[in-house]
């Protein structure tokens, strides 16, 4: 916490809201962030605000000058009114004063616009920066984060929570500064005008500040309740509307409406309560302000009249007034009183504003809390130092290494250790005694031991939740193992830079995801520098070419966000083409063909075979055709490898594999 932004005036009795303000640590953090990035602009803004405050003060003080220095003297010269036309009063000084005032006001306007303009850039710029920071940070978060957070929740950080900042940065900061500047400037001029009247003003301002903050505190309770009910209603809508088809099938409509009505009414009444208080603040404040005005007018009148000796009430009061008025070394003139009354308005308005801003900062902290929670989330650990590089046979083979690093793709890959040594990528993946659980205390994999030799095809089969997908997710370090060791060409996978590790592993996932863009863009996602022809070749390889050609614009057909216009099978074909164009040394296919009907699958078999040829491949499938010709089949059950071997060996064992395959339970 920067000491500069910590409100220190945390007195025990007046500090309830200030304490909340201190609790809103993330808001202060946000402010620090803004100041760090926009030092110069904030500096200029502060300067501009100062100028505008002074000029607006000048304009309110002008009322006094106008009346006392210009109009009253003119009135006291009877010539203008009674001595006939022609010898009118001299308006020259007034004109000059007005021109001067105009110039000052113009400066104020320019400064005001400049500060607004800069604040827009600061506010919007901060929002943009924060969004980019959020997204950048999110890319480095472990998958665990995405597993544990609802997607809607993550999305709302970018929209709802960042939006609350617009208010805080865009208006709270400048308003606070402006209000403070106005208060100080006004206060000084009030002291200059009249000390006793200033004291009255301060008491009233303190009263307003107290009222606003304590009302704000009162409403906070209701705001918390409102947020809670809002969450409940949103949750209910989300769940029930998602399951709406089931609601229909079970004729559950009436119950659903009844339950919703109850929650809806709860929400309505808590919103209403929260607003009730919020709505009182403004009228109460303006009333206090009016009261202060009258009080000042009365006190001021007493002082002014006492001073001019035309008092009709009593000499004691007149004497007091004269004394007090004299304290300032000047009589309280009519013009002074009028100016003071105007100043009074200038004084109370920023007080209300400050207390309102404090309230809104406390409210906004809910948004900044969530935003910083995401930004503070720990990123994926990556201490890897071994990197993946393109390699070519060394032109001078007699030197120690037989490979040299080259910038372009050669189809030959090598691992580069920090010392600069190159080691050919073979595709030897080995797991030894690996234990793993997604959540502590709930182990899902036990003592996994297996070795995939270069070029081998390893298949995983087993029931739901047996741990097939989990194993592949450990090889590419989507999740970190708890115990044991995974090595890749002899390197511990933890010592390989994550980016290199994942670039060396081509994955086709169970659920296909397409991105909005053309078909070609989606295939090219596998390798961004692939040419159009390379993408087409990949599509032909996996038999995706015929259906793509049938699309309205062929390869240039724009797919909607989630590939809605393609069938599940067609989407899987595109995902396979994507992996093919990536041309990775090692492949992981997780139910890659599950939605492709058996007839099409037969067609693409050849393409799949040529894709897998020469590459170490891990395959998860529940179709026999995909599994049968694997070099090794691992049968998983409840997180353990219970059988392993070739297809016919496993059939002969008459164990779980046989059971899964035939659908018959083994008796005994």
């Amino acid at each position, binding site marked *: 916490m920067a000491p500069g932004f910590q409100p220190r005036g945390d007195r025990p009795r007046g500090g309830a809201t200030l304490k909340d303000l201190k609790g809103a640590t993330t808001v202060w953090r946000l402010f620090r962030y803004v100041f760090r990035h926009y030092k110069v602009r904030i500096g200029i803004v502060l300067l501009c605000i100062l100028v505008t405050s002074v000029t607006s003060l000048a304009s309110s003080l002008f009322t006094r000058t106008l009346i006392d220095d210009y*109009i009253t003297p*003119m009135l006291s010269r009877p010539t203008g*009114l009674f001595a006939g036309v022609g010898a009118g009063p001299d308006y020259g000084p007034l*004109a000059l004063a007005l021109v001067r*005032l105009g110039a000052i006001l*113009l400066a104020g306007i320019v400064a005001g616009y400049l500060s*607004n303009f800069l604040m827009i850039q600061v506010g*919007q710029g901060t929002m*943009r920066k924060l969004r*980019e920071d959020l*997204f950048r940070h*999110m*890319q480095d978060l472990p*998958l665990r984060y995405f597993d544990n957070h609802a997607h809607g929740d993550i*999305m709302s950080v*970018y929209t709802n929570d960042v939006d609350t900042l617009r208010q805080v940065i865009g208006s709270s900061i400048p308003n606070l500064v402006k209000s403070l500047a106005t208060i100080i400037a006004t206060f000084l001029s009030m002291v200059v005008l009249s000390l006793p009247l200033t004291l009255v003003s301060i008491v009233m301002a303190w009263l307003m500040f107290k009222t606003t903050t304590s009302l704000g505190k009162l409403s906070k309770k209701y705001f918390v309740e409102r947020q809670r009910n809002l969450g409940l209603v*949103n949750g209910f*809508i989300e*769940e029930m509307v*998602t399951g709406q088809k089931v609601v229909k*099938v*079970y*004729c559950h409509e009436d119950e659903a*409406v009844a339950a*919703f*009505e109850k929650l809806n009414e709860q929400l309505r009444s808590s919103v209403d309560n929260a*607003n009730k208080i919020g709505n*009182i603040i403004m009228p109460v404040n*303006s*009333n206090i302000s*009016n009261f202060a005005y009258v009080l000042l007018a*009365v006190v001021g*009148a007493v002082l002014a*009249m006492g001073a001019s000796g035309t*008092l009709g009430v009593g000499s004691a009061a007149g004497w007091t007034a004269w004394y007090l008025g004299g304290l300032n070394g000047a009589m309280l003139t*009519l013009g002074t*009183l009028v100016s003071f*009354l105007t100043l009074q308005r200038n004084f109370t308005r920023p007080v209300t504003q400050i207390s309102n801003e404090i309230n809104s900062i406390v409210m906004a902290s809910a948004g900044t809390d969530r935003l910083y929670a995401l930004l503070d989330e720990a990123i994926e650990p990556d201490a890897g130092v071994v990197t993946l590089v393109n390699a070519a046979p060394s032109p001078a083979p007699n030197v120690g290494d037989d490979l040299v690093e080259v910038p372009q793709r050669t189809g030959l890959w090598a691992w580069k250790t920090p010392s600069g040594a190159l080691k050919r990528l073979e595709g030897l993946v080995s797991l030894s005694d690996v234990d793993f659980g997604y959540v502590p205390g709930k182990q899902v994999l036990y003592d996994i031991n297996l070795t995939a030799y270069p070029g081998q095809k390893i298949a995983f*089969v087993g029931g*739901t939740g047996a741990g097939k997908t989990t194993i592949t997710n450990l090889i590419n370090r*989507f999740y970190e193992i708890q115990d044991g060791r995974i090595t890749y060409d002899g390197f511990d996978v933890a010592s390989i830079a994550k980016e290199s590790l*994942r*670039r060396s*592993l081509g*994955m086709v996932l169970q659920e296909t*995801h397409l991105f909005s863009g053309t078909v070609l863009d989606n295939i090219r*996602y596998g390798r*961004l520098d692939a040419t159009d022809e390379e993408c087409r070749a990949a599509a032909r390889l996996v038999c995706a070419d015929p259906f793509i050609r049938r699309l309205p614009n062929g390869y240039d057909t724009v797919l909607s966000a*989630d590939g809605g216009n393609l069938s599940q*099978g067609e989407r899987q074909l595109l995902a396979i083409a994507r992996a093919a164009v990536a041309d990775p040394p090692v492949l992981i296919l997780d139910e890659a063909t599950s*939605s*492709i009907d*058996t*007839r*099409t699958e*037969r067609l693409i078999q050849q393409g799949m075979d040529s894709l897998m040829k020469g590459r170490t491949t891990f395959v998860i*499938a529940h179709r026999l055709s995909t*599994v049968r010709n694997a070099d090794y089949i691992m049968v998983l059950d409840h997180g353990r490898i219970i059988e392993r071997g070739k297809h016919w060996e496993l059939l002969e064992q008459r164990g779980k594999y046989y059971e899964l*395959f035939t*659908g018959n339970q083994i008796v005994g």
Partner: protein
Amino acid sequence: MLKTLLREVRQYKWPALLTPVWTTAEVVLWIFIPYVTASIIDKGINAGDLRAVLRYGGIMLILAFLSLVFGFLAGRFAAYSSTGLAANLRLAMYRNIQRFSFSDIDKFSTAGLVTRMTTDVSSIQNAFQTLLRTSFRAPLNMVSALVMCFFIHRRLSLIFLVAMLVLAIFLTVLITRVAKLFKEILQKVDALNAVVQENVSAIRVVKAFVREHHEISKFDRAALSLFTMNVRAESLMALNHPVMNLVVNGCTIALSWYGAHFIVEGSLTTGQLTSLFSYIMTVLSGLMMLSMVFVQLTQSYASAVRIVEVIDEEPDMANPDEPVTVVPDGSIDFDHVYFSYTQGGDYALEDISLHIDAGETVGVIGGTGSGKSTLAALVARLYDVSEGSVRVGGRDVRAYDMKTLRWEVAMVLQKSTLFSGTILENLRWGRPDATYEECVEACRQACADEFIREMPDGYETLIDQGGTNVSGGQRQRLCIARALLKRPKVLVLDDSTSAVDTATDARIRETFAARIPGVTRLIISQRILSIKDADRIIVMDNGRVSGFDTHENLLRTNAIYREIYEMQTSGGEGDFDGR
């Protein structure tokens, strides 16, 4: 559109209508205050009459207090009626969604409906509140302040008129410009959200292909264009202040100049001049407020359209006038049925005619997109046929009361959905008054009893939202048990055991045959093992029935069936289990 929205004000009509009344009262009182202030100065201070100061001060306090009361009432009523409207809108939408047919739900998409019921409603709530409070207050303030000015000094007031005209023209131009920009901003926001959404849901692909930098540059582009747009719109909006100040200050100077003249002439007093100064702000800020209302209304217009779409959506399926409430038996007939999901679109089903006896078990098999699920959905009248007719128990499904039909035709959907609550509560969706024993019995039939008993709290175990704390296979079995509790005449399983392992799947079929013999069963599956023992099997191909016969006959006569069979059994491909 406006009519639909206003109709939902309902029980909050009077508070809503009274708000402007309170506002009017507040404004009128408020307007008198500067006038009284002038009296304090002129009749009190200038005249050296402390009694007058006290008298007018007292009047001012009373006025201020009354205006507080009315201001409070106005705020209170506005908040009350706008939150009420929001609640009514949510309820109206939710009620209508309950009437939606499956195709209506498809049309709006779940995510779309959720945003409409949350974000869009609060945008309307805010707009309505502003409308109630400000749209009356601002012009009223303006007009009454203007009247007061005329009352004080007619010729000086002309300055105000000129100022208002200038400001009004400026604001109109500004608003039309800004409104256009706001529309573009909304599109940019959508684009940004799309990038985030795609990224979050496809995060595994992003990470697997190491495309983080690619995604970041995509996002940065979206963020930049949103930023540029926002800065443009806000900078334009920010012109408001300098122009406003220019006009106000211009007025101040003009007032000072002419005011001085008039005071010297004697047609104006100093007190009146100070009142005029404070009226400048009232008049012009009223105009400003009004322009803000317009901006907010244009912003919430899109939300209003989206809400009304849901409320006014006429479900494309309605109960018949004289609905039949008894389904005599579980026989099913398709009579030259054609069906398309979109009007005039390609047929998903073409010329389907078949008859299924009551109590018969029928398997449905076929490739992806061949129309299996569509066929089943028509039996429970989840969609209406485009041509031809579907009959259950000998009567057209459109003649039945929809609830009766769906009660008798139990449909287990492809996507198994459970709701947050205990297992028992979820099961009782099937029959609200089912006893504990009946629920257990249904779970036994669906082979769910054993795993439920293994859970720490058994049948009282809490299911998380979306049923994420039970596995896919367990979820499917719970859904089957829930459907069995309906004691239906027809049971439709739409690929409902895909995640259940083959052995359990076989056991479920066995218990069905033994325990619920009279129920017509329609079993859709990708797995040949799940359906090969059915009485008869429908082979779907490209929206048509390619064969409908027993397993043995189909093997002989139907090429598609034979091919699937060969691929999935020993000679070719087999299924090990579901995912």
